[in-house]
């Protein structure tokens, strides 16, 4: 059982933001980086399937620069067997279709039994890379999977719809599945595993022709504040008092 799991290092903003000089992205100095939450569930699911199969390999695949290896090391520390990182400067800030093109070349060469990815990344939230990747590989796909059982030649999956309704889907294998949070309990990497992961192989590749980008960010900006919330101050006792008053008044109507 060979599984490729696509992971991404995501950036999170604190309470301050500055933009790059061309205003097309946030200045990286203002971002804290981590393994995308959805991808930690996808990684856990891949490890579970490998371990249940009793043999096989989990290959963690990412598009990112050298700094993005931190997230990949996290996936390796969880138990992925090896990593592949794809990068060229034209992938900086790339749209999800372009990222899928970069991933597809590697996945095709690996010829896995299953490809997993997170539903979405927390920083861009396009929820698109997995489905685009499936198309480029000409594989069936299911987006937003909350349960996964392998059969012979097929898999039975739960596709979580709006409102919590579940569509039970039978999908031909190999397939690309995008994994939703809550499908499992991602393991913590022990310190020892983190150390060992430093020794695991990460193969670095350059992408081929990436085609025309599907979109380009013209500028990023801090959204104009609307009316905004009326702030109740910062003193907990005063805040609590005001909350009580507001609740009492609003519940009367």
């Amino acid at each position: 059982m060979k599984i490729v799991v696509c992971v991404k290092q995501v950036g999170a903003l604190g309470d301050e933001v500055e933009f790059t000089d061309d205003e097309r992205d946030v200045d990286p100095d203002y971002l804290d980086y981590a393994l995308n939450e959805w991808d930690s569930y996808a990684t856990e699911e891949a490890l579970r399937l490998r371990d249940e199969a009793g043999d096989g390999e989990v290959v963690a695949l990412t598009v990112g620069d050298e700094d993005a290896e931190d997230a990949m090391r996290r996936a390796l520390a969880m138990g992925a067997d090896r990593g592949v990182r794809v990068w060229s400067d034209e992938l900086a800030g790339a749209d999800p279709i372009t990222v899928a093109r970069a991933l597809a070349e590697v996945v095709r060469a690996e010829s896995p039994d299953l490809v997993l990815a997170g539903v979405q990344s927390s920083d861009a939230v396009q929820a698109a890379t997995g489905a685009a990747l499936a198309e480029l590989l000409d594989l069936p796909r299911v987006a937003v999977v909350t349960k996964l059982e392998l059969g012979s030649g097929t898999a039975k999956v739960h596709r979580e719809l709006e409102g919590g309704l579940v569509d039970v889907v039978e999908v031909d294998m190999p397939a690309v599945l995008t994994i939703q949070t809550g499908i499992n309990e991602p393991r913590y990497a022990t310190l020892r595993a983190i150390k060992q992961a430093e020794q695991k192989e990460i193969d670095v590749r350059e992408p081929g022709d990436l085609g025309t980008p599907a979109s380009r960010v013209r500028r990023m900006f801090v959204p104009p504040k609307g009316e905004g919330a009326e702030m109740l101050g910062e003193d907990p006792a005063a805040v609590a008092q005001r909350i009580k008053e507001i609740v009492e008044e609003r519940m009367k109507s």
Partner: protein
Amino acid sequence: MSVLVVAEHIRGELRPVTLELISAAKSLGGPVAVAVIAKDPSAFTDAVNVEGVDEILTVQVDQDEFENDVYQAVVGQLIADRRPRAVLLGFTVGSMGYGPALAAKHGLGFASDVFAVREENGGLVAERSFYGAKVNGELEFPGHDTVVLLVRPTSWAPAEGAGSASVSAVDAPSVTSRARHQDWVEAQAGDVDITTAEFLLSVGRGIGDKENLEQFEELAESMGATLSSSRPLVDAGWMPNARQVGQSGKTVKPKVYLALGISGAVQHLAGMKTAGTIIAVNNDPEAAIFNVAHYGAVADLFEVAEELEKLY
């Protein structure tokens, strides 16, 4: 500019996002064509025949349940035949399965979770958010004659008013589905129905530990509120599914929604932003929840909770 909207329906009901997509399409100037892909498309034609729709394209397929391969093949063919400037789909679980694939296969422009779109100098410009909705971005699509946009639900008001669209049938391409609908599993019913509660006290990741939950259960009870939560607490198994507010949980509209330690992911906001009065307590002054809250406090939620306990 010609715009193609794909109607969404589930178990015999047209989804509200469809009429919002029609409003978005109208804002681009039209002509607006709406594709209805169903076993019996005529069941939905009246519902989508609203003011501003020029053409309804009915595509009969073998089954009503959504399947990626079917929708992708049909919409792919409509794009090839009609060359619309924009293809508008809802930013929904269904569209996530085939919208990006359409763009990848046919080399189209693409963006998702779009909440504004306009034409500028002959090209489309779409707006969406990044980095936990703390930053917005304007996207352009150079080199693309057709752009697929997945539109955030509730960004446009639903289109209404009687329409006078022409209705024409289009043959579906033959397609073998590789991911097949088998069954439905209903969302779990809970001990309480949070959609009917008038006062919700909702907790999020900010509560930190499962052991802290009891304190908020007690606080909710003494305040006369029903306890609900954001998704991470359900994922962690601390709260039952039935208490989850948001796109994949329940949509709620209480008189008062008191959010403690909820940052306000887009999917959460979708489930509660129409509440009568929203009060948010969070230690991050830039948390997106403050953008929809009527009242806010940047404070430690445990300290505020302790003070509330004294008052009730």
